[in-house]
């Protein structure tokens, strides 16, 4: 076998740099213009932008459902929404927010930022990335079309059996929900694999494990949590759909099945899910805190240890969702202890951020407002979590508005506030323009104020005994005023988010031009243009510290091919240069494969034979996806077509 001559192909280096290099790289890495180029793209930034925009649309839809519920509950005995419609609305609200907004948007930030932050040209397995987006989009559209046709889910976002089983949920409502799970979990798992591959192998030379940005660490832990938790819900929902379609008996207690089997499998996923949403939020906070305090986050090894510990402990406390089902005493004790223990790594991180701010002069720019909003809100949510970890109190509070208040404090405080801070912080990188400051501050004040008005109140509504998921309540319970306040708060919160989105739209066109590094940040995504070129960096950066852009210069490596898509692979621990591997070119096959998979998933709602016949087009699409498109040219170095 003749080895190709490395000297035969054009590479970056002292003789090819600057504008000439940009032009050459753009030719190799840019998508073709027009619709076909748009559909074929495998650029992680374009795919991530789609993910983020789609997720924000679902946030808006889920938010509208929340407002409808708040309108219904604003006064007692309201006849605005029927009980059946209300069931579908709260089920869709939870489903949309968890599966179609929160997890996808967090992973999308990973997809956008991780390759830039580790200093590489593309994400690992970029076609899988494109495939995952199309699948997620199809699943989201499917469940929303079903909902609008009055076949939306009706048994809550965790679809407890037997309520969701064939005996109590006739028709196809729950089946659409179960297949929505399949769509979104396959997409989320695909992204997790890409992120693990990118973080393990594509880091810039010198980015040792102890120099990885904390955000990237948070995404790595999150990706592993996705990998270990999502199979549980996929398995559970497949078993549910087969109980409903082909009369298996997994959850049928009269034939040896068990309703608790569902709860165990669901919460083995469902609890880590909360941390899958929250850990990237912690990563955002670390990145923003570092930049605006102009110093590395205090106690880096402790921060990493806390992320990993949170990830591990998150798998040891799913049973605290099931305290009311009756458990052995030892089970109560163990899961109470684990649920309280997870407050420790969260507390460590809170104290490390406070120490970072204490030890510096933080600049109170807009992203920092969200960080402070996060700290206040999340600490309250964390404390009510410790309260609910105690079994006697949990039995009292279970299924009341106290729990609704608690998890909105953790998810909105721990997830959405950091996310809005992250959008503000990375907006200039993603669009080239700054997000408007005045509207941004107004959005923060309304969101933060409206949130606490709506949800602080719910603690008291819950303590006074109001159960969640009731479509109305009698007038003499003493809940009227509290509910009205919550409704007013919800509308203020929604107006804040609306202004945030309006601010984005205005700033896209008239925001101040940002430049490469408007905040003076230290991590590699700020070392390139805003928005970044399709190839991310001209040359592969060389990292000598955990804050590379705060060093005097950022040295680079030369020698990757510029006429073909090529990546540098480095060693896992030390990040020493090891291999050059080609990166896949754009392809239409991920879209076709996603369409074939969509056919398979939707068909199998109606017939078990879809699993047989529907697999064939999907398999054919996957084979075309992988099969090389041109005859081999062994004189040249490898490409992936």
């Amino acid at each position, binding site marked *: 076998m003749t080895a*190709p001559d*490395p000297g035969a192909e054009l590479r970056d280096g002292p003789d090819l740099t600057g504008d000439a290099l940009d032009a050459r790289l753009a030719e190799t890495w840019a998508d073709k213009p027009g619709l076909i180029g748009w559909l074929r793209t495998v650029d992680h930034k374009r795919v991530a932008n789609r993910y983020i925009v789609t997720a924000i649309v679902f946030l808006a839809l889920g938010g509208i459902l929340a407002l409808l519920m708040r309108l219904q509950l604003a006064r007692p005995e309201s006849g605005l929404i029927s009980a059946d419609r209300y069931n579908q609305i709260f089920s869709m609200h939870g489903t949309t927010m968890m599966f179609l907004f929160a997890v996808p948007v967090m992973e999308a930030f990973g997809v956008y930022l991780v390759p830039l932050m580790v200093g590489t040209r593309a994400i690992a397995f970029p076609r899988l990335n494109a495939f995952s987006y199309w699948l997620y989009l199809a699943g989201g559209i499917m469940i929303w079309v079903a909902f609008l046709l009055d076949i939306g889910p009706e048994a809550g976002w965790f679809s407890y059996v037997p309520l969701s089983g064939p005996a109590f949920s006739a028709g196809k409502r729950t089946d659409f929900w179960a297949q929505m799970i399949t769509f979104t979990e396959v997409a989320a798992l695909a992204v997790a694999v890409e992120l693990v591959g990118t973080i393990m192998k594509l880091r810039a030379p010198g980015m040792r494990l102890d120099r990885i940005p904390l955000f990237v660490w948070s995404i790595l832990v999150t990706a592993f949590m996705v990998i270990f938790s999502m*199979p549980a819900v996929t398995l559970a929902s497949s078993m549910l759909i*087969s109980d409903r379609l082909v009369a298996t008996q997994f959850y049928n207690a009269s034939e040896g099945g068990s309703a608790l089997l569902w709860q165990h499998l669901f919460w083995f996923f469902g609890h880590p899910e909360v941390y899958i949403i929250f850990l990237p939020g912690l990563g955002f906070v670390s990145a923003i805190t570092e930049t605006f305090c102009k110093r590395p986050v205090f106690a880096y090894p402790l921060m990493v240890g806390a992320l990993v510990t949170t990830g591990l402990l998150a798998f040891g406390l799913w049973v605290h969702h099931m305290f009311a089902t009756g458990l052995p005493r030892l089970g109560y004790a163990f899961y109470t202890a684990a649920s309280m223990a997870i407050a420790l790594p969260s507390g460590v991180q809170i104290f490390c951020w406070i120490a970072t701010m204490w030890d510096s002069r933080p600049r109170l720019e807009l992203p920092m407002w969200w960080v402070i909003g996060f700290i206040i809100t999340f600490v309250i949510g964390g404390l009510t979590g410790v309260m609910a970890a105690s079994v006697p109190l949990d039995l009292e509070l279970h299924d009341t508005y106290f729990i609704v208040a608690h998890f909105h404090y953790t998810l909105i405080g721990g997830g959405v506030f950091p996310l809005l801070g992250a959008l503000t912080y990375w907006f200039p990188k993603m669009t080239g323009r700054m997000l408007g400051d005045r509207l941004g501050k107004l959005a923060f004040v309304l969101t933060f104020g409206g949130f606490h008005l709506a949800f602080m109140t719910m603690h008291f509504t819950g303590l006074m005994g109001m159960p969640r998921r009731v479509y109305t309540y009698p007038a003499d319970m003493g809940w009227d005023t509290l509910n009205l306040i919550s409704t007013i708060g919800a509308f203020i919160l929604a107006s804040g988010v609306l202004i945030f989105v309006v601010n984005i739209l205005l700033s896209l066109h008239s925001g101040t031009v940002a430049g490469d590094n408007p905040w003076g940040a230290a991590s590699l995504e700020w070392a390139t243009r805003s928005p970044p070129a399709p190839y991310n960096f001209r040359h592969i950066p060389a990292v000598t510290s955990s804050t590379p852009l705060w060093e005097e210069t950022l040295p680079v*490596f030369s020698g990757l091919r510029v006429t073909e898509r090529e990546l540098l692979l480095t060693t896992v621990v030390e990040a020493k*240069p090891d291999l050059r591997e080609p990166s896949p070119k754009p392809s239409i096959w991920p879209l076709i494969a996603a369409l074939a998979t969509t056919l398979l998933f939707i068909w199998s709602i109606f017939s078990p034979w879809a699993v047989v016949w529907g697999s064939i087009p999907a398999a054919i699409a996957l084979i075309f996806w992988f099969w090389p498109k041109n005859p081999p040219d062994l004189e040249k170095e490898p490409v992936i077509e």
Partner: protein
Amino acid sequence: MSSQPKFSGDLAHLPTYGFGARSLTWWGVIAFMMIEGGGFALAAGAYLFLMSQETAWPPASYPPALLPGAIFTAIILLSEIPNTIIKKASEAQQLAKVRFWLVVIDLIGVLLFVVRAFEFAHINVRWSDNAYGSIVWALLLLHTIHILTDWVDSVVLTALMFTGHGEGPRRFVDVSENSLYWRFVWLTWIPIFALLYLVPRFV
């Protein structure tokens, strides 16, 4: 970035392929193994959970017939011999050897499906009879899908190795990782075999 950056090294001399943990493919394969391994572990957990609710296991039938399951297990364990030959030959980039043994292992796959059909025929319970029947069918079906997907993958790879593409070194990496995945497929079978065939008899 300034127009004339400071170069601290050149990457042109690096190889364009590497086996095992050096390659991105390996990491993808390992990640998918974790996903599928997790899925199987949870399904096994569901089996044990359902078993713990019953006084007799199987509740109202005979366990699956041992012979087809034992034959299947013997064949899939022996398939590691050609699998190891393929893995070593691919890492030594011996094309003719890789081609021959890939065809052999694809044929072994066909044999496995035939035996698997007998396993289903002698499972001694319907999926709709009770939760025991459901989980037994689920485990056997999941593992069948597992071998089916890897078999299709192997056949496509075999075809690819018979084209001119087979001479590219990166294709040998694909073959090597495919062999790694096959190891995972038969390793996951061992606990499933124990659950389906041994636990109802001996526990």
